[in-house]
């Protein structure tokens, strides 16, 4: 147990826990990015925007009671006592943290499907144009968010049942961060089951491996594109809401998260979920330890592994050879 890495980790236990939690969050963000990249062969440069927009949707739902006022809810004026009670009940449901996260994910799935169907689809086959399109859309989304939600950061509190900390001997772990890791593990398991054990997953894998042949055997790859794009957008939005109590939501969050997703997927190999999982936790550690130990060179530490992998092993650490 005298290895220097173990010493470094035990000496910085808080940082280690933060790194693992951040890695879990990164996995939620990058899993969809990886599938989109693997299937459609383009890095979706608005994935960070999905994360941020999803987080903004989430905080808006969470703040709905504060915006509308609990006691004097307007529906009451129109529909009487029953309406007021119904409205209050609906509001309570919508402003539940997990409902807000799922609703935000659902909304973003619709938006993602729309963007794929009506914009990206028009440029089918032109990969560079598609990348540039996603870049342009990311500018639009970031400015619209600034317009609607202003420049102030929003930081929702963690759901009531997950506030506080767990003690283990002399060490204290924030409960919410542990919950984020648990969520990431559950989502990873669900995605693994979907991709490896279902018919849909088999079709996605076929599309990732060889889209033209998948078409030939009768898989409607274009429909898969829409589905995977919507799924990726939904996961990013869900990650945004789950991450909001830790990271808060602010203008520029998209630009902070997108490069991380990009690095994770480059490290792990495009289209590979185990790769995305390993890459996420690796980046979680590099990001947190880099920021804490070498703040001047934090971004160099982040991007250098990506450059090295792109140059030396373009298929990613876990990607299949050839491609």
């Amino acid at each position, binding site marked *: 147990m005298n290895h220097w890495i173990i010493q470094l980790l035990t000496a910085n236990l808080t940082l280690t826990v933060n790194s693992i939690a951040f890695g879990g969050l990164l996995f939620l963000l990058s899993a969809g990015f990886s599938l989109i990249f693997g299937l459609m*062969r*383009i*890095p979706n440069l608005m994935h960070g925007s999905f994360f941020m927009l999803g987080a903004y949707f989430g905080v808006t739902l969470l703040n709905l009671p504060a915006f509308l006022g609990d006691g004097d809810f307007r529906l009451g004026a129109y529909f009487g006592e029953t309406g007021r009670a119904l409205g209050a009940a609906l509001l309570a449901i919508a402003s539940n943290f997990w409902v807000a996260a799922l609703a935000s994910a659902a909304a973003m799935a619709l938006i993602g499907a729309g963007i794929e169907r009506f*914009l990206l689809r*028009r*440029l089918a086959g*032109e*990969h*560079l*144009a598609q*990348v*540039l*399109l996603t*870049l*342009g*859309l*990311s*500018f*639009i*989304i*970031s*400015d*619209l968010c*600034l*317009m609607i939600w202003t420049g102030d950061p929003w930081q929702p509190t963690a759901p009531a049942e997950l506030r506080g900390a767990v003690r283990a001997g002399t060490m204290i772990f924030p409960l919410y961060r542990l919950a984020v890791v648990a969520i990431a593990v559950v989502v990873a398991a669900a995605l693994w089951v979907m991709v490896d054990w279902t018919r849909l997953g088999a079709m996605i894998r076929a599309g990732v491996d060889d889209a033209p042949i998948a078409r030939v055997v009768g898989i409607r790859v274009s429909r898969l594109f829409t589905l995977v794009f919507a799924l990726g957008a939904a996961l990013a939005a869900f990650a945004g809401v789950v991450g909001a109590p830790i990271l808060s939501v602010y203008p520029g969050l998209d*630009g902070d998260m997108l*490069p991380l997703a*990009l*690095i994770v997927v*480059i490290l792990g190999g495009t289209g590979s979920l185990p790769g995305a999982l390993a890459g996420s936790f690796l980046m979680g550690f590099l990001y947190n330890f880099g920021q804490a130990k070498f*703040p*001047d*060179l*934090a*971004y*160099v530490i*982040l*991007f*250098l592994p*990506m*450059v090295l992998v*792109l*140059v030396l092993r*373009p298929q990613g650490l876990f990607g299949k050879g050839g491609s």
Partner: protein
Amino acid sequence: MKIGLAPYGALGLAFLTLAMLPWWAGNSYYIDLASQILLFAIFALALNVLVGYGGLVSIGHAGLFAVSGYTAALMLQAGYGHAAAVGAAVLATLTASAVFAVLALRATGIGFLMITLALGQILWGIAYRWAALTGGDNGVNIAARPVPFGISLADAPSFYYYATLAVFVVALAAMAAFERSPFGASLRGTRDQARRMTALGYNVWLIRFLAFLFSGFWCSVAGLLYVYNKLFISPQVAGLQASAEVLLMVISGGTATLLGPVAGAALVISVKYSLNVAAEALTVVLSALAMYLLGPSLGADVAIVVKGALNAVATRWNLVLGVVFVTIIILMPEGLVPGSIRLWRTASQRLAASRVGKIRPGAQP
């Protein structure tokens, strides 16, 4: 011969107009705007070498631009002279370009794009976070502009404009020479038929590498002009957004053309700096139109809404940038100038076809 002379006449006329600009523009604001357009045109021309002629889309060029500007600014701040600062800036940018090229040219297409993106973000990260070296978010100020041949560029904006114009003309001439040279032809060859070029005995990698250095050199020139224009540089110029803006200049004007990037730079910079002017003018026009079409009472309401919407958009450069980007990519992938000509031709042909149809309704196709 007749046709051959016309472009030169147009070019001479354009140059005369540019040379006379300080007289007819009047306001020093517009002279400064023109300087910025010219220096960003050089930047866009530099990127166009790779994007247009080489088929290599880089989203990290703002990093090279920033290397040049930062090197010069830091050298000046450390007390070196202008000649040393300029020389060091060009050398540093060429070195950075060589490193970029060696790493990024392992791939083409999306891979090239992502490696340049990562490298650009590294340079941005250094500018932004390594505060001990680069001043971090506060940037670097420099004291004064150089005095070439005893001409002070400090006082009137027009002198600086002329210096920029002179460099721009040299850059344009260099690009024209490059386009016609065997080297330019072989670079286009690597873009269109890399395998055949290899089979013909060309060293595709070396051609691309040299093109990258050529591009990097003009990036460093543009970066120097920028830092001497603003007398200030900050991490903003190194970021992904800056790289995307210059890429938009190249794509919007039309890639692999000599004047496309110049037109793109003019469009992007003038929209960026005079968006509020344009929005005000549009507000006046639309309000008058609404009053005329909808009557005074409803028209006034509509005018208020229009004014509010345009006011909101006027400060939203990013939004406009994104919309222009998306529109160009979806509707005119070949660039704004060729795209507009194509759309105009299609429209007028359709119009002509429908007229023919009206004259001879019974005609069989």
